[in-house]
């Protein structure tokens, strides 16, 4: 390619300075032949498998140009074609960069431990059951179980949660996560594409290569288009005997931008999603997603965090610290979500030598620390212990319950010491996210929940959601979605992907939020790895952008073809090299346009 460029430049220097025509022509001929050679090889190979590719058209055109002694056209056309292909490769690689970044989360080599010796081996040679060593700062190469050591792992690539989690012996670690500190020995359980992360990569790759109806049409179109152009050019020659015109048709007939336009938008858009924790299952999904009318949400774990938290506390004692230390010690012994919420809230470690804890189902916990009996539970537990509840405290309890809290009272020494209000909080910044979604085109929101109507209403009111229905079984949710679809609505269902797979499957678009679990990947069309709701806005706006981008690309491609073909018949400005230049330029424009999607971001908007 560079050789031909130098030759072309030489030829023109000669043309303008020395004005020796024969030398110019000679150089151009050599240049033309140089750059046609690789094109012809490609052409030959495709003819061998009975396919008329662009290379075939260009080869014939260049040979034709040489035959009619139009050497400059031959040289320039073949050079432009090669140069265009080179630029296309460079830019296409950029559009695919997102997936490369993902793949790099898996190390190429691992340290295997066998017979107390360590050995560095290629990731491909790891077998199930092998024990691997993972050091601080390195990436976990496989899914496995910790057999030795302890460490903190950042699992953002799988769960979206960037706060490191502690991993001890017996815990499961995932490929593609990063060991922030510590050293682990892990026993390999899953490798390569069987790992959770491998499945995420596979999902993205398949999505990028999945073909929408429009794209399949384009593929078919181009399959017949190139042979058609060849025939058209032959017919033109037979009728007009004008070789120049017929070979120009060949060059113009390359369907480049038309064929590459849609895949480029697809790959960049899906790539953008993948780097932002939004996984689309395919390009058809994107189209449906951009057309959604109704978004149906599950409540617990979707609109709410799904992990109860202490959101309000009233103290009735001067000795708060003492109380918190006692409470922590007894609640630590229980794995009830409310107890965990309290332990998390107190966040100080306390242990006592003599401690005994008894759980009373549906009421609370009774703990004994150094002969002191501590009650932590609901009003029934306290009353049964014959502890007096003042009217002030009763009023506080009533307010807490009205606000949708579950309550825990703490009492000892015959006195109530504290009241805890615990609530499954609505995800932060949710109202804003929903408003943004509505502003960008979603017509209505619905909550379907198995929870009681009261708490569903509270969430709906807070978030400005149009319909809220509680006390539903999974099969009721399914029915509701079907009724919406019968009214010709395009419905998206958003859930945590664990217990609502029928609804996820029934909806036109099933979206699972929070974690790339196997189940979520299998049942939903869109996976939001991050449990943050602004990702949903990102996903929705991105899908609209991708569709718009595809339309632009088709328009550009069709526009260019129309201009070139009409140029053939109107005026004589159109030469083979101009045709080739416009053709290659249009491909690059389409690729560059697609690349804009890689940079797409949701603007921070505060509508409230």
């Amino acid at each position, binding site marked *: 390619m560079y050789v031909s460029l130098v030759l072309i430049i030489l030829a023109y220097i000669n043309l303008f300075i020395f004005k020796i025509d024969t030398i110019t022509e000679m150089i151009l001929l050599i240049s033309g032949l140089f750059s046609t050679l690789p094109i012809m*090889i*490609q052409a030959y*190979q*495709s003819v061998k*498998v*009975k*396919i008329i*590719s*662009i*290379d075939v058209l260009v080869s014939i055109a260049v040979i034709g140009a040489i035959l009619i002694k139009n050497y400059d056209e031959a040289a320039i056309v073949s050079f432009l074609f090669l140069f265009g*292909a080179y630029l*296309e*490769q460079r830019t*296409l*690689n950029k559009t*695919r960069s997102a*997936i490369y970044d993902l793949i790099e989360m898996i190390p190429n080599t691992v340290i295997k431990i066998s017979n107390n010796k360590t050995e560095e081996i290629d990731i*491909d040679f790891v077998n199930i059951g092998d024990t691997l060593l993972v050091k601080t700062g390195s990436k976990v190469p496989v899914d496995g179980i910790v057999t030795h050591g302890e460490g903190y792992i950042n699992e953002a690539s799988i769960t979206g949660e960037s706060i490191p989690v502690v991993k001890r012996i017996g815990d499961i670690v995932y490929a593609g996560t990063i060991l922030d500190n510590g050293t682990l020995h892990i026993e390999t359980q899953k490798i*390569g594409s069987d790992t959770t992360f491998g499945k995420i990569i596979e999902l993205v*790759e*398949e999505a*990028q*290569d999945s073909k929408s109806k429009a794209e399949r049409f384009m*593929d078919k179109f*181009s*399959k017949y288009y190139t042979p058609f152009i060849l025939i058209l050019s032959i017919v033109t020659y037979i009728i007009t005997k004008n070789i120049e015109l017929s070979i120009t048709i060949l060059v113009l007939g390359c369907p480049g931008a038309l*064929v*590459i336009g849609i*895949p480029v938008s*697809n*790959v960049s858009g899906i790539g953008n999603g993948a780097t932002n924790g939004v996984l689309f299952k395919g390009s058809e999904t994107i189209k449906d997603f951009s057309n959604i009318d109704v978004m149906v949400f599950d409540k617990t774990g979707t609109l709410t965090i799904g992990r109860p938290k202490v959101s309000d506390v009233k103290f009735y004692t001067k000795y708060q610290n003492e109380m918190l230390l006692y409470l922590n010690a007894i609640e630590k012994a229980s794995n009830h979500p409310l107890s965990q919420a309290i332990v998390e809230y107190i966040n100080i470690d306390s242990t006592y030598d003599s401690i005994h804890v008894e759980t009373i189902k549906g009421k609370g916990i009774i703990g004994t620390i150094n002969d002191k009996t501590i009650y932590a539970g609901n009003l029934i537990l306290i009353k049964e212990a014959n502890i007096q509840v003042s009217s002030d405290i009763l009023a506080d309890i009533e307010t807490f319950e009205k606000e949708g809290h579950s309550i825990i009272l703490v009492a000892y020494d015959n006195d109530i010491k504290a009241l805890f209000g615990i609530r499954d909080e609505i995800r932060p910044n949710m109202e804003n996210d929903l408003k943004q979604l509505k502003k960008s085109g979603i017509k209505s929101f619905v909550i379907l929940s198995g929870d009681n109507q009261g708490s569903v209403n509270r969430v709906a009111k807070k978030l400005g959601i149009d319909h809220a229905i509680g006390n539903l079984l999974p099969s009721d949710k399914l029915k509701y979605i079907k009724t919406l679809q019968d009214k010709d609505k395009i419905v998206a269902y958003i859930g945590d992907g664990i217990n609502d797979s029928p609804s996820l499957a029934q909806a036109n678009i099933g979206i699972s939020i929070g974690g790339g679990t196997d189940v979520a990947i299998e049942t939903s069309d869109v996976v939001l790895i991050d449990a943050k709701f602004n990702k949903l806005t990102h996903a929705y706006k991105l899908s609209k952008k991708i569709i718009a981008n595809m339309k632009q690309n088709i328009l550009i491609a069709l526009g260019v073809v129309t201009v070139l073909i009409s140029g053939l018949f109107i005026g004589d400005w159109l030469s083979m090299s101009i045709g080739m230049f416009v053709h290659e330029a249009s491909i690059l424009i389409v690729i560059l346009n697609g690349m804009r999607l890689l940079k797409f971001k949701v603007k921070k908007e505060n509508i409230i």
Partner: protein
Amino acid sequence: MKNAIIQLETLTCPSCLQKINGALKKLKGIEHESVQVMFNSSKVKFAFNSDEISIKTIENSIENLGYGIIKSSIKD
């Protein structure tokens, strides 16, 4: 029948897909319906009968078209 995935060097033109597709479908022992050439990830997936054709032969036929092979993996 075994499933194979061949990772190719970056594919840049959509007509490459047609070529590879055409070449593989000419080979005996490859299940025609299973051939899937993935443009963006530059991979070829297909099922083949290892008694009738070796992976080496398949690789050669792709390399003869002018596309480099990075690695191939086979699953039973």
